[in-house]
């Protein structure tokens, strides 16, 4: 075998790979699958996200066109006088008035975005959107007509000449579908109306909620925006059109990062598997490798070939992963709406764009990570003197003492990182903390194992004592199997604690928020449907309704760059803690009076308020002053919410309408009868949704479980990979100790006793690993719950430990470890036991 140069390296590599494949196909398959999983998840998240953002970006671009400044108000709008004022501004070349509404549609839970605009003015700013109005301008101006985008028409199953009923208040208005725009005009669901017709149809006479401005040449847009901001009424903001796009995009950032982190964990697990597989195979082939060295293969060639083996596994896995990921992305885009299921970016019918270059990147990452996993054993094998390899016998890894120090340093760093705030709005330090804690803890395993074994007393039983003695003498090798158990088990524990805590907190939160028997709600986020004063009185008068409470929600813009905050005006009878899931409240003197405001944790985190701080909110076009009287938990809105009393809201705005309500039944009244009563009282009820609280609770938990289904799936996979790792490690240990088994048998130990010793070793090691993994997992769960969760979603979770779940998993893992130890010991001893002794002697 003349192995020289690169060609030589390749030959060496090829010989090794083929031999490997023949010998351990299952192991290789699992390793490849683990890497494929990591790469697939990463690629799918990337593809879905890129496609959705590209779609969203192009849609936003059409919506805002060539505007330099967008003047955006609260969702209930502002006076059109502002438009007149801006249209006359000498710096403004064109001002285009817009009424932008999420319109509620009877019988549908989602809303339709409708733009009411002045085509003569909008044509200069949004040519792509307006271009097709042409033929229908006369009808559009005539009133009561709407043009639908192609996707809206398909979604609503409407054609030219059809009618579109819309909910306004609790009533219904009928719009005429003048035509359907071509798909090129606007890719998302949208309706276009004349601004005058829209103002009238939706009861917004005199109001606008958006004005697009194009400035005269030479006017500094940034400066103009700043100056304009000073002149605008309370709650009205001047923003750059890019901000409108970025705001929506940034909503999903934390969610995307979390998914990417899961992908990274899968990838690292894959690397760990490559490491253990390669360690095992290097041990198995130590004599062939020695022979190759003796035949003239250089140390470098051998190392490259062995690293190449790992990389080959990685490349295969990554390739598979990219294909799998593309399919996953296509499926996700079809089933979900492109926002990875978190419902914050509403984009429909997103087309998947294949991205060859980034996919090549994912292939490279998988290959490199796997190659790195193979590098450690390859280096060890290459450094081994050829003569010693040829002679055979037990292998030994030495773990440097410096690793203990590094471990301590990493643990301390991990602890410190957990206390840092988010970076660029993302919990990056939190993830760094998890990584540091994990690696630090693994590096400490050898030292800890040695120390624990030293403490273990003699039991007086031969099998057990031999097991302990064996472990003592073989700390480094044991570390390999332990690392596998610890990494996978601790991550699993951390994840289980986090999800369980979240579910528990969520469940209690639902209970607090849904104390009544029946909940009423107009479609979330809609701007047109509401319950008038009269509707509310009619609902209260329905037979069977005991007590009823109404709420009004509004969207407020507090910061141009952020998504709107939800203002909730509701009754607050009795102490606030009875009405809201408070996590913190002010002294009682602050909690009463019209000026009390209770902010959600998201509000607190995003805008940096504390209990007792004054808070200024734009209500009905004026800044109203409040004092923060409490902070409550809100799992419904990550972008912040604030509760004020309905009395204060009505006093400020004069608006007595409501969008939500809670109904307590009177005595033995049935929910179904009251539901029917309310519907008939409102003559059908338009878009009003009526739910029994128990049903909402059930459905919410279902949605929760579905949202975490991907997490559960990953957990299961982590357990399987962990078990596979344990079994690989056990086999490699057993294999490395063939000579030792032979010796033990030789000195008179029974086969049963050797197996017993191995089981003892397995149980001891896995007990230790499980205990260590539990402790580490508990620490990691703290970081997940208190740092990563809080920084990603702006809400808190109370720690809750799923004891029985963890107990069951621990027992399973210990048993599995013992069984694999026994099984691999038997395999190692069976036929070759005697040959093993001979090998050494």
């Amino acid at each position: 075998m003349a192995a020289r140069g690169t060609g030589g390296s390749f030959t060496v590599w090829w010989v090794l790979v083929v031999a490997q494949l023949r010998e351990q196909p299952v192991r290789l398959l699992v390793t490849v699958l683990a890497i494929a999983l990591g790469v697939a998840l990463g690629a799918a998240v990337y593809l879905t996200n890129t496609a959705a953002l590209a779609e969203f970006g192009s849609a936003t671009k059409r919506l805002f066109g060539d505007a330099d400044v967008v003047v955006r108000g609260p969702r209930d709008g502002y006076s059109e006088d502002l438009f007149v004022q801006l249209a006359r501004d000498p710096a403004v070349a064109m001002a285009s008035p817009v009424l932008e509404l999420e319109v509620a549609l009877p019988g549908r839970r989602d809303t339709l975005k409708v733009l009411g605009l002045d085509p003569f003015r909008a044509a200069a700013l949004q040519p792509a959107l307006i271009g097709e109005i042409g033929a229908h301008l006369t009808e559009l101006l005539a009133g009561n007509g709407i043009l639908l985008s192609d996707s809206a028409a398909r979604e609503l199953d409407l054609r030219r000449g059809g009618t579109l009923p819309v909910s306004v208040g609790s009533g219904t208005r009928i719009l005429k579908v003048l035509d359907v725009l071509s798909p090129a005009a606007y890719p998302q669901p949208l309706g276009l109306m004349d601004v005058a017709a829209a103002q009238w149809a939706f009861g917004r006479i005199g109001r606008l909620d958006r004005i697009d401005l194009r400035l005269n040449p030479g006017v500094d847009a940034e400066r103009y925006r700043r100056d304009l901001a000073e002149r605008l009424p309370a709650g009205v903001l001047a923003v750059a059109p890019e901000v409108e796009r970025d705001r929506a995009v940034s909503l999903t950032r934390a969610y995307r990062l979390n998914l990417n982190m899961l992908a990274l964990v899968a990838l690292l697990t894959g690397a760990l598997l490559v490491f253990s597989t390669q360690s095992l195979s290097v041990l198995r082939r130590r004599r062939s490798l020695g022979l190759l060295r003796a035949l003239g293969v250089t140390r470098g060639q051998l190392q490259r070939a062995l690293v190449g083996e790992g990389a080959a596994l990685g490349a295969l896995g990554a390739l598979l992963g990219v294909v799998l990921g593309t399919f996953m992305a296509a499926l996700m885009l079809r089933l979900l709406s492109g926002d990875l299921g978190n419902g914050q970016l509403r984009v429909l019918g997103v087309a998947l764009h294949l991205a060859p270059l980034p996919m090549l990147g994912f292939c490279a990452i998988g290959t490199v990570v796997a190659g790195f996993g193979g590098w450690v054993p390859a280096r060890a094998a290459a450094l081994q003197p050829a003569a010693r390899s040829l002679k055979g016998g037990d292998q030994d890894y030495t773990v440097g003492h410096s690793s203990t120090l590094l471990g301590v340093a990493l643990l301390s760093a991990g602890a410190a990182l957990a206390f840092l705030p988010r970076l660029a709005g993302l919990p990056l330090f939190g993830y760094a903390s998890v990584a540091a804690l994990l690696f630090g803890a693994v590096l400490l395993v050898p030292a800890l194992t040695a120390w624990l074994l030293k403490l273990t007393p003699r039991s007086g039983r031969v099998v057990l004592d031999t097991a302990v003695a064996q472990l003592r003498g073989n700390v480094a090798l044991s570390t390999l199997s332990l690392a596998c158990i610890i990494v996978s088990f601790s991550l699993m524990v951390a994840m289980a604690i986090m999800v369980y805590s979240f579910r528990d907190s969520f469940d209690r939160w639902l209970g607090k928020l849904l104390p009544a028997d029946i909940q009423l709600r107009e479609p979330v986020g809609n701007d047109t449907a509401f319950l008038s004063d009269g509707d509310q009185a009619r609902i209260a008068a329905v037979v069977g309704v005991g007590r009823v409470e109404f709420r009004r929600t509004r969207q407020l813009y507090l910061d141009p760059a952020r998504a709107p905050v939800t203002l909730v005006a509701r009754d607050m009878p009795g102490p606030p803690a009875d009405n809201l899931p408070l996590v913190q409240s002010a002294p009682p003197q602050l909690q009463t009076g019209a000026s009390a405001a209770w902010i959600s944790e998201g509000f607190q985190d995003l805008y940096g308020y504390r209990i007792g701080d004054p808070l200024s909110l734009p209500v009905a076009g004026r800044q109203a002053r409040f004092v923060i009287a409490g902070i409550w938990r809100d799992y419904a809105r990550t972008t912040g919410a604030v509760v004020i009393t309905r009395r204060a809201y009505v006093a400020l705005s004069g608006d007595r309408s409501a969008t939500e309500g809670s109904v307590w039944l009177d005595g033995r009244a049935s929910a179904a009868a009251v539901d029917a009563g309310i519907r008939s009282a409102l003559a059908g009820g338009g878009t009003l949704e009526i739910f029994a609280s128990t049903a909402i609770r059930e459905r919410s938990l279902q949605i929760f479980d579905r949202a975490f289904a991907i997490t559960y799936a990953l957990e299961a996979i982590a357990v399987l990979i962990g078990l596979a790792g344990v079994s690989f490690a056990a086999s490699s240990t057993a294999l490395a100790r063939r000579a030792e088994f032979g010796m033990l048998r030789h000195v008179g130990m029974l086969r049963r006793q050797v197996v017993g010793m191995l089981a003892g070793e397995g149980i001891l090691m896995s007990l230790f690993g499980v205990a260590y993994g539990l402790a580490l997992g508990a620490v990691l769960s703290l970081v997940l719950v208190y740092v990563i969760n809080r920084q990603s979603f702006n809400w808190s979770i109370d720690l809750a430990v799923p004891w029985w779940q963890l107990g069951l998993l621990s027992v399973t893992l210990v048993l599995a470890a013992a069984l694999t130890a026994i099984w691999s010991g038997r395999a190692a001893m069976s036929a070759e036991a005697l040959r093993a002794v001979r090998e050494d002697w």
Partner: protein
Amino acid sequence: MSARALAGLLGAFAGAWVGTVAGAPLGTPVDVPVGTPLTVPAAAAGAAPAASARRYATVLPGHALEFPRDFGSHPQFRTEWWYVTGWLQTRKGELLGFQITFFRTRPDVDETNPSAFTPHQLLIAHCAVSDPTRGRLWQDQRIRRAGLGLAQAREGDTEVWIDDWRLQRRGADYSARLAADGFALNLTLSATRPPMENGQSGFSRKGPAAESASYYYSIPQMQIAGSLTRAGKTDPVVGTAWFDHEWSSDYLDPGATGWDWIGINLDDGGALMAFRIRGAGGETRWAGGTLERPDGRVRTLDAADIDFTPARRWLSPRTGIAYPVVWHVRAGPETIDLEPLMDDQENDTRLTTGAVYWEGAVRALRGGLPVGRGYLELTGYGERLRIR
């Protein structure tokens, strides 16, 4: 890109609108108002409601014009325009033509809508400057809904504006201020005589049908003082202008394809307005005019008094339309030749009215000697050019 989109939008709009109000079959050339800068080619697009419920005021003979009331807007009529043309001279002696039009139209909308944006009236403005030194025609246009104080045609006296474009009467003076794309006009026009009522005391027939008529008066020989800005450079200008104001509800008969119109300020202080309406074969379907003598005597001209004879054509390199730009015109006792200030005075208002037409400054000659200056308008020569 934006221009193309807008053209599609408004061209089709104008066609649909005219198709609607005239009740004419689609695809036929309709509603071509005489003496206005507006041609509106019928568009194939637009499903016009068959019979509009809207009732517009009717133009009737025997109705005396009353000033200043009739200087103002008449919103109860379907269409109306204020139209200023004339010649300008800079201090360096440069001669230019200019044209300013404000056009009002009343679309068919639900007038019970209380919204301030309800388009009870639409306003269109167009202005152009013929600049032979540079060999170009400066032009710009706007279309808006009336209302909110941003665009309006006032009743009671002439005051019409779209954003910062404005035409307004104050006593005997009119001021016109239009800061347009690349150029600006800031003119004061002084009337030197009372309005000249066209037709029968301002009742001007446009075709064989009795309802094809408008109320129409002109103010010739207006003296101009003001400034013209081109590409950032402002020059003081003087000159003579012609002012038209016309309103109507039912205009031309469906057989008309276009018209030729002139408004000439004669050097002796007189004034000549003449028009003829052409049929599909180029034949004269109707004609009329007014001749005012320097001493104020007015003679109303009828079809038999008027002949338009083309002498030379100019082919537009942009649209491929051939316009007769040199004419021999007989109007009652006057016989004149018309020579354009420059050949290329083709106007493109596809963005607002959907029309392409020739409208430009012309010299009036008698026996080769100059006797006056004015404007010539040629519409309906581009039937081949239909907007969607």
